[in-house]
């Protein structure tokens, strides 16, 4: 696929987006205290006996044009977070601000309008396409839903298929089972882009692909980001991929954000012990760097009944009394480009024996010059 050629043909796309409403400095997406607890019902009367705290008070911002990587173990609430952002499942509490407008609030952005501006690519490329629909119709469906004529929608679908590197004449009439995994995921990406969204949530979008195809799709995503002026929320458990695509990284553990910051800072100097353990779990390309001990022992605790205080304390090697008593808060005042971490070790005088040392260390890297606000 010759990307550079198509790129030059699209040079008319300017950095400023006409759909921009909140101004350049306004974050594309602000999530504040998003929370979703799934009830577990039991007994004869179907009463709620417990709650799974899938996403428990998650706050973050996504700047315009950036890629926010979301990492974490399986079951830490990454996919629930994606569905909360799309309002596919309504959040229990918390608010979502899309380009300055509150979503699903009074006088705010309606969910239906928000979905035009924010789209999602799912992990399972096969089940996210209707098996009884030619893929061209699958792509066109989004526009038809929003009132485009059949002809216009098909035209848009064919144009997008070309953009994602599939010949519409060859692949348009095919059914999903007639495509390979990578081709199906390209169709899914085209389907997400047909409404001309500003934000695309990629929920493990490349995880199910084999490595060579994964690389192709990642490059395609990078190319599309430039062409369509997109903002990505990239959810993955693959730390290397996240490092490759992200501008900033958000680390989740058991439904909470434990660390957020620019990708280089987090990968070079992880603050939270969990982030450090995650990064240490990556395999090295150098056979001499053998790891004989797992960086982290045990499974994450049950999200139905999470540990008191810091949720990571049961597996943390630095855990002390204070971690059990008090929940470390994620500092919200670091600015959109700052590096924040929810750990007592990084709060001065928190009561943790290592707190002062780390806090003193912390003064140097997070200089205010890097954060625009």
């Amino acid at each position, binding site marked *: 696929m010759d990307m550079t050629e198509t790129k030059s043909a699209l040079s008319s796309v300017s950095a400023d987006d006409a759909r921009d409403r909140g101004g350049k400095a306004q974050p594309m997406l602000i999530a504040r205290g998003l929370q979703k607890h799934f009830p577990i019902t039991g007994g004869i009367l179907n009463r709620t006996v417990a709650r799974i705290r899938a996403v428990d008070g998650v706050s973050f911002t996504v700047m315009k044009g950036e890629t926010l990587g979301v990492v974490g173990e399986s079951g830490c609430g990454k996919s629930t977070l994606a569905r909360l952002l799309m309002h596919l499942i309504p959040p229990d509490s918390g608010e979502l601000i899309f380009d300055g407008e509150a979503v699903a609030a009074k006088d705010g952005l309606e969910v239906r309008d928000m979905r035009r501006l924010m789209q999602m690519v799912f992990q*399972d490329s096969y089940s996210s396409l209707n098996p009884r629909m*030619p893929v061209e119709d699958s792509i066109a*469906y989004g526009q038809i*839903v929003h009132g485009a004529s059949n002809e216009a929608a098909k035209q848009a679908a064919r144009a997008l298929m070309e953009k994602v590197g599939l010949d519409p*004449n060859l692949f348009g009439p095919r059914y999903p089972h007639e495509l390979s995994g990578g081709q199906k995921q390209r169709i899914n990406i085209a389907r997400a882009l047909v409404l001309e969204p500003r934000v695309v949530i990629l929920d493990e979008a490349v995880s199910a692909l084999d490595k060579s195809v994964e690389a192709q799709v990642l490059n395609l995503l990078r190319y599309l980001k430039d062409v369509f002026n997109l903002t990505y929320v990239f959810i993955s458990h693959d730390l290397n991929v996240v490092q490759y695509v992200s501008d900033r990284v958000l680390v989740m553990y058991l439904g909470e954000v434990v660390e957020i910051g620019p990708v280089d800072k987090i990968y070079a100097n992880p603050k939270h012990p969990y982030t450090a353990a995650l990064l240490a779990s990556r395999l090295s390309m150098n056979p001499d760097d053998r790891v004989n001990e797992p960086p982290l022992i045990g499974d994450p605790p049950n999200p139905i009944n999470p540990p008191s205080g810091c949720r990571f304390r049961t597996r943390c090697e630095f855990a002390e009394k204070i971690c059990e008593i008090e929940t470390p808060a994620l500092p919200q005042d670091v600015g959109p480009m700052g590096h924040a971490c929810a750990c007592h070790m990084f709060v001065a005088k928190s009561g943790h024996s290592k707190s002062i040392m780390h806090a003193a260390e912390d003064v140097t890297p997070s200089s205010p010059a890097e954060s625009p606000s």
Partner: protein
Amino acid sequence: MSDATVNNLQPKASEVAPALKVRSYWQTVGYRLRYDYMTLFFGFVVILIILSAIFAPLLAPMDPYQSSMLNRLKPIGYKDFILGTDELGRDILSRILYGGRISLTMGILPVFIATVIGGLLGIIAGFVGGRTNMTIMRIMDVFYAFPSILLAVAISGALGGGIFNGMMSLTLVFIPPLCRVAETATSQVRNLDFVEAARATGASTFSIIRVHILGNVLGPILIYSSSLVSVSILIASGLSFLGLGVTPPEPDWGLMLNTLRQAIYIQPVICALPGVAILVTSICFNLVSDGLRSAMDVRM
């Protein structure tokens, strides 16, 4: 030489893939059926059977009600009676042609109504889920607990004989299995990511059901209901056989089988003829539904 290298990058006109027509799902099914000669043939036979029932007054050589004591239970080809006569000397061929009218109505109409009602209930139950699903499906289970023929006999018995009551009982009998097929198919499809993706594009529930659910669910429902047509004819015959459906002297395949049973030692071939009519119709419907099934499975 350098020119040639450059040209290699440009696909030649002959190498550009010809634009294939994008067929919608139902167009694809139609296209596939067009080349399935087996199904086409048996579909043609089904149509012939239906037409012969509709035009029975024109086709029947004799009056199906006209009895003759002199010509009772005559063999095939006796005088003008092409397929012989029954125990009252009535022409079998005419009675089979006329009997098709009632038998086919009893076979197709209840299944059609049950497909609409049962399919709708099943799709609602499967898509909404939760308590709605439980309410609908448990009620269906109550009906499902009885063997279908027993249930049909029970309902017909309670309502009394007659064609209309017979059809009503058949409809009630077929709603639960169709509802269950629809519910299973719907709840399977509902949890797939493409439904979620359709919701994420902002599609309304109605549009999702119409475009995404129906396309995936209608196949199994239609296939199952077309196979039920033959079952319906058989149960309707059974009802007539028991005296609950059609009343004599009305010609009906099941009823004819019932009355001719007494003459089975005198004219076994004649007695079997209405049964042959039921058999041929059933087989044709089953084979057509089989062809429909393979045409609708685009993955094959």
